[in-house]
């Protein structure tokens, strides 16, 4: 099928394009991009060379950008299909403007063997609405004892390795993972948490945990592991990626490490720059997430980290849960936020606040994650997959989790007035229309 997307504002940082123009898609690949910057525009319309008999999408008033790439998604399949499936999770992704997601291995069974990796890859090709790259486990069964077969998993399709959900508590194993993974040039993604310090904690430790009477997780629980992994990264020269940075202290550690030339990248998630622990007053379990949302100071530090490049990317840490896992005592409720369908709008708030410009936001949500994962995504180059999000950045809406395509309706942003509606997503050779 051939598609022509016309009249949108094309922003493609990889090819240094930002201007009105048209994109022609042939057989699921980008054929041609014609940017019509007003000052250089010659012919009226500018699509004279395009063939007829094609489906036309009018993107007037919208930005047309490379599909978003999420480095940190929980699709829950296999094993927890009641929370999410590859089908529903990728549909939620496409709805949120994502055309690529990288799914974490804490499924049941854990993605530590090629059987599981192949299952995910095949299922995603068959039922998925976007491209899925699995992330393999660092250790067998995420048990922190022996390395998983990183070579075999890489060959089966894994693009990174992580024991996400849990930290690699054994420093020697983490050292070996960072060393061994160098053979394959794959990132090792670290869930930074000192489980002795965080034990029993359900929210940020601080004044708000004191007045709610809930057990806190101190910032040090994250920062100690960030510091350890940076030291191991320096020691080994492996590729370290720090997941879900939530504290100002972590941002500082990473900033210093980068200044020293350590081979590290880092991500944060929309909730860490949009929410503080004060929002937990009232005990809404939809705000329970690990690491926990922190304080205003941390939010400011995370934003500064995004602005100055210390934090390379924004990932969702999309962690869908069934309502039964959230309709519980706060202590007993599951950790996690359903994030795919609100991420870009929350990112746009950073643009509104002057933290990032639109191009930088697209870099952090598409271009750079693709670079870190070494996958051919995040660019509108001729010949590449037609992975495109068409977004009206000015259109306002109110978040209604009951309408999410994800099975997980666990959003702390319910009722928030946001801007930026994903109008259409082009993914896997199909056009998804959302409005």
């Amino acid at each position, binding site marked *: 099928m051939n598609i022509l997307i016309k009249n949108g504002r094309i922003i493609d940082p990889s090819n240094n394009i930002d201007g009105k123009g048209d994109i022609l898609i042939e057989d699921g690949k980008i054929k041609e991009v014609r940017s019509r910057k007003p000052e250089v525009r010659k012919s009226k319309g500018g699509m004279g060379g395009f063939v007829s008999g094609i489906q036309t999408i009018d993107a007037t008033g919208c930005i047309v950008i490379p599909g978003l790439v999420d480095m940190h998604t929980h699709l829950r399949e296999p094993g927890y299909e009641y929370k999410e499936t590859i089908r529903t999770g990728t549909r939620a992704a496409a709805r949120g403007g994502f055309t690529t997601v990288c799914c974490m291995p804490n499924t049941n069974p854990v993605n530590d063997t090629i059987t599981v990796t192949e299952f995910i890859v095949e299922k995603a090709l068959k039922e998925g609405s976007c491209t899925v790259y699995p992330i393999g486990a660092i250790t067998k069964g995420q048990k922190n004892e022996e390395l998983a077969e990183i070579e075999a998993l890489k060959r089966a399709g894994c693009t990174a390795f992580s024991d996400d959900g849990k930290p690699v508590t054994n420093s020697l194993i983490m050292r070996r993972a960072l060393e061994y993974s160098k053979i394959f040039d794959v990132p090792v993604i670290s869930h930074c948490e000192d489980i002795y310090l965080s034990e029993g904690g359900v929210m940020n430790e601080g004044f708000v*945990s004191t*007045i709610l*009477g809930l057990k*806190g997780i101190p910032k040090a629980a994250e920062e100690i592991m960030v510091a350890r992994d940076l030291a191991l990264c320096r020691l080994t020269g492996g590729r370290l990626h720090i997941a879900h940075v939530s504290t100002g202290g972590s941002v500082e550690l990473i900033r210093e490490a980068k200044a020293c030339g350590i081979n590290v990248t880092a991500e944060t998630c929309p909730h860490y720059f949009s929410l503080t622990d004060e929002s937990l007053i009232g*005990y809404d379990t939809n705000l329970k997430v690990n690491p926990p949302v922190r304080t205003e100071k941390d939010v400011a530090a995370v934003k500064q980290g995004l602005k100055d490049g210390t934090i390379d990317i924004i990932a969702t840490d999309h962690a869908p849960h069934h309502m039964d896992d959230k309709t519980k005592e706060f202590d007993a409720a599951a950790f996690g936020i359903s994030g795919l369908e609100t991420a870009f709008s929350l990112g746009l708030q950073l643009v509104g606040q002057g933290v990032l410009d639109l191009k930088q936001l697209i870099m952090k949500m598409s271009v750079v994650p693709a670079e870190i994962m070494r996958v051919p995504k995040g660019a509108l180059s001729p010949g590449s997959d037609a992975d495109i999000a068409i977004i009206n950045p000015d259109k306002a809406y109110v978040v209604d989790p009951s309408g999410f395509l994800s099975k997980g309706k666990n959003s702390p942003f319910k009722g928030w007035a946001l801007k930026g509606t994903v109008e259409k997503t082009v993914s896997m050779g199909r056009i998804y229309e959302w409005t």
Partner: protein
Amino acid sequence: MLNSKDLLGIKELSPEEIYQILDTASGFRDVLKRDIKKVPPLRGKTVVNLFFEPSTRTRTSFELAAKRLSADVVNFSVATSSVTKGETLKDTALTIKALGADFVVIRHSSAGVPHFLSRVLDLSIINAGDGSNEHPTQALLDLFTVLSHKKKIKGLTVAIIGDIVHSRVARSCIYAFTKLGAHVRVICPPTLTPPEITNLGTTVFHNMEKGLANADVIMTLRLQLERQSKGFLPSLEEYFYLYGLTAERMKVAKEDAIVMHPGPMNRGVEIESEVADGPQSVILEQVTNGLAVRMAVLYLLAGVRK
């Protein structure tokens, strides 16, 4: 008139509401001195005691308070309930509603459970202790007891000693005494100090003698014996040496200082018998006052729901 159908915590109450409860309790305190102690206001109402944690004194106190007001009382305790069969909290709550209860008195080891129930149920929820969050009726009975001795709260120095970080009694008392103008000190080891507690207007002491100096009210808390194994304390002996309330230490407080304890006590761990049974102790009065305060709470909440 109270502003809410529920009593979730002292945090949510205004000083006026607190005084209204205390005034009402004072009337019921007189009723309890009569020969016939039963009055009719809650006739035909049902109070469910929903206790997910073991409790004797609080549950008994609520039960008796409800009976004195002529309500029917049902005790729903975790050991005998379907919770042990895997029922969720929400289903338990809805079951109680379907049974036609008017009040749920809830105790649970997780903070926020009464708030959860108040969202699920339209009947009156009374918090009888939720995790480390609040135990509002305990703080109200403490206020009542102090008032009966000191005639005022404003300007008093109240010292609370012990495991502050895990204590819902400490939190409720800090809110209660602070709201009515007292100055609250907490005396505890750094390992049992809640983060940023000074933001509540309290002063933190790690030394007993300094913390007790010139105190009007001394409240010592039960030390959960498992704190030692969790690494908060090296030993109970060391705790008693540093923070045990002894007659010797009492000397630095005001001469007419009163000693309180929410019970149950560990004699020789947080308090020595000479003090617990001494002339300054008002510990048993607290128990009697608890009954009057809980009657007042039930009575006033019934008024809100009318």
